[in-house]
Structure formats: C-alpha cells, structure tokens
C-alpha cells in the first residue's frame, strides 16, 4: 500500500468519478465540483504565466518606450473589457469584444485558408493513373471519389435525385466509413485513458501489479 498521502488523494478522486457509473452520488458531485473549481483556477494561472505575463508585464518591463506606448492599446482594451461590470460604461466593452471578434474572424479566415482549404485541395489533386502501380491508382481514385461525393452530399442547392442523388448517396457511405473510423479511434483513446487510471489504482495505489 502506498503511503504517500497524495496517491491516496488521487485514488479518492479517481474512484469518486468512476462511482458515477453506478449512479449519481455525493462523492462524484464533490469530485466534479473540485474539478470545475480547480480547473478554472488552473486556467487562470496558466493564462497568466504563459500569455498575459510574458506578453504584457515582461514586454512592458523589458520593452523600449515605443513598445510601451504600443502596449497601452491592448492594456486599455483589456480594461475596457472589464467595463462590463459597470452598467453605465458597459458599451465600452464592445470595443474590446469587437477587436477579439475581428481578430478571431481574421485568424479564422487566414487559418482555414492556409491550414485546410489549400492543403486539402492540394492533397486531393492526385494522378488518377500511375503506370505500373495499380494499387496506388485505385487508392487515388477512392480518395478523389470520396472527396467529391462527400462534398456533393453537402451541396443543397440542387435536389438529391437521379444521377446526382446516387452520387451523394455514395458520399453518405464514405461519410459512414469515416465516422466509423473516428468512432473506433475515439473509443480506443478513451479506453487507453481508462487503462491508465486502472493501472494507477492497481499499481501506484494498491501495489497489486
């Protein structure tokens, strides 16, 4: 039996959460509350240590006068964000929200173009005939057909009937295969987490294995 108090704490929280499999109970509710509360504090500390402190405090201390003048803008907008707590000045917080929304939208457009649209189209433009490599030729056909039929399923400007209907129904088959594969992977990821927790209980806590 492990003597470290912290192993017992971890074992208590692990068992308390797993107890939900039987039914909702006070032990689970306590562990859930501790998880939510401590995670919120952890996120706050994480944001401070890795985002706000290096980008704002350290940049202010180490920066030149110009850097400091530039930093006044995000600091002012951050203070504006907190104006939501003062009903009369609540409207000022919209400026900060507008900046984050605009940045989010801009980063979204740029990121999706760079990270998804271009690489995915590039990955789909593959040769449909490779001499002396029948296997790769078939694989390329499957990828191209899968992409086009899946996109056609999400094209709602035209009725899914006739040839187009058959094309989009083939897309559904590809989608089902993709969902099946994703589901299988997700299950295995969760099961590996469960194995980790069970190993902790049996090895670190009880010392049985």
């Amino acid at each position: 039996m492990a003597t470290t108090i912290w192993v017992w704490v971890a074992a208590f929280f692990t068992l308390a959460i797993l107890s939900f499999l039987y039914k909702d109970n006070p032990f689970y509710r306590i562990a859930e509350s501790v998880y939510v509360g401590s995670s919120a504090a952890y996120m706050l500390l994480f944001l401070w240590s890795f985002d706000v402190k290096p980008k704002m405090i350290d940049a202010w201390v180490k920066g030149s006068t110009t850097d400091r003048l530039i930093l006044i803008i995000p600091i002012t907008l951050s203070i504006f964000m907190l104006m939501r707590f003062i009903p009369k000045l609540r409207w000022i917080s919209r400026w900060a929200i507008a900046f984050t929304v605009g940045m989010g939208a801009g980063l979204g457009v740029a990121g999706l173009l760079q990270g998804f649209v271009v690489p995915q189209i590039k990955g789909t433009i593959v040769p449909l005939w490779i001499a002396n490599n029948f296997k790769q030729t078939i694989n390329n056909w499957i990828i191209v057909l899968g992409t086009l039929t899946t996109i056609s399923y999400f094209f709602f400007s035209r009725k899914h009937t006739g040839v187009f209907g058959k094309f989009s129904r083939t897309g559904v088959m590809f989608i089902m295969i993709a969902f099946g594969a994703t589901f299988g992977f997700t299950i295995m990821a969760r099961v590996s987490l469960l194995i980790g927790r069970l190993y902790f209980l049996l090895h670190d806590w009880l010392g049985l294995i």
Partner: protein
Amino acid sequence: MKREIPMIITFVSGMAIIIALFVPHPPFGRVEETFNNWYIIISGFTMILGLNSLLGHNLDKVKRKAEGWPYSLTLILSFFITLIWGIVSTIRTGHIFASTSTFRNYYYTYVFVPLQSTMFALLAFFIASAAYRAFRARTVNATLLLVTASIIMLTQVPKGETVMAPVLGVAALLAVWKLMSEFESAASWTAGLPYLLLSIAIVAVYLPIVEVLRTQTTAVNDWIMNVLQMGAKRGIWLGIALGGIAMGLRIIFGIEKSYLT
C-alpha cells in the same frame, strides 16, 4: 457611434490579419505579430468575465442555501485554494511549472491529471453504451459504420488479430442468419434470391477477409485511415473550412452583428 466604432475595429483587425496572409512583406508581418499579442492579452482578460459568472452563480447558490449548495461551496473553496497555491508556488520558485514547484509536483500530478483523465475515461463507458443502442446493422450505411469501427478497434488492441476471426465469424453468422430468415419469408423464390446470393457471398469472402485482416493488421488499419476514410474527411474539412471562411467574412464586413447585442 456605439455600434459603428466596434464595427470599424472588427473590420480593421480582421482585414489586417487577412492582408498579412496575402502580403508576407514588412510591415504586415510585424502588424500581424503585434495584433496577435494584443489578442492574447485581451483574451486573457475575458477569463475574468467567465470567472465572475462561474463564481457569482455558485456564490449566489450558497447565499440562498439552494439545492446542492455544499457542492457550490466546494467549487468556490477549491478555486481559491488552487489559486492561492499556484500564486505562492510561483512566488517561491519563479514559475508555476518549475521543477521544484509544489503546484506542479502535487496539484497538477495528483489532483488535476487524475480528475481530468478519469472524467474523460468515463466517456468510454457512455460511448460504448450509446454504441450498443445505436449500432444496429439495419441498413447498409449503419453496417459500414459498425464494420469500420469494429475493424479499427480490433486493429488497435494487442492480440486484436487473434480475436478478429471469432468476432467477425459471429458477425458473419448473425448476418447470414438474418439474410436467410429474410429469404424464407420472401413472397417468392425470385424475390428472396438477392438475400440468398448475399449470404453465399458472405460465406465465400469470410475466410479470405479474415486472413488478410489477421496477417496484415497494420496495413489494413493504415489503408482505412489513409485512403478509405480520407476522402470523406477531406470533404467534411473542406465544407467546415468554407463555412468558417464565409462566417469570418460576414463578421469582418459587418453583415453578422450578433456579437454587438
């Protein structure tokens, strides 16, 4: 002006990032970096708004002695204990994740990680339970989902290739049994013929398929992940990306203004 200024800010910040993508020359690269830093700082402050909502709601429950108030009190106490612990640890060691930080060595290792990983592990049971109810090989599409998920799961576990033959054998037997009962209840011999042919096909391909899955487990898993499901994933990703871009442009050009309400 209470609406126009925020819309101008949204337009300028959004367009600056998009222009920086297409014009990778000074001063746009620097503007993008500066705006990104601002975004990180301001987003950090939005956490305070979220915390105000979380703590305010739970504090209100404690004050009113509403149902489950002891849990709300536990939440508030665990928040402040973690926060104070983190601050003290940071002051003592210089960084929250320093190797000598008690916050990292005790709170993170023995409280945060067990809570988070057990919470996510719990989902394995719920997903399996939902799958048991939803995974019925009633249609071709449902069967494709079931078969792909089963193969992926079996190819991921140790000794999966050994249990593959009996698992698929039971599945094939059930499928043949179902098809044969459809054949028996068919109105005429010709109407039931497709069921009979499908049963024969399943029996005929069972052994070769099991042999391939048993001997080339990793190759089959890779082929499903890199080829068979890749087309659909690409289609879905492209759809999501195009939708996201359209939404982003709507926000930047002030067509979508719900964030101002």
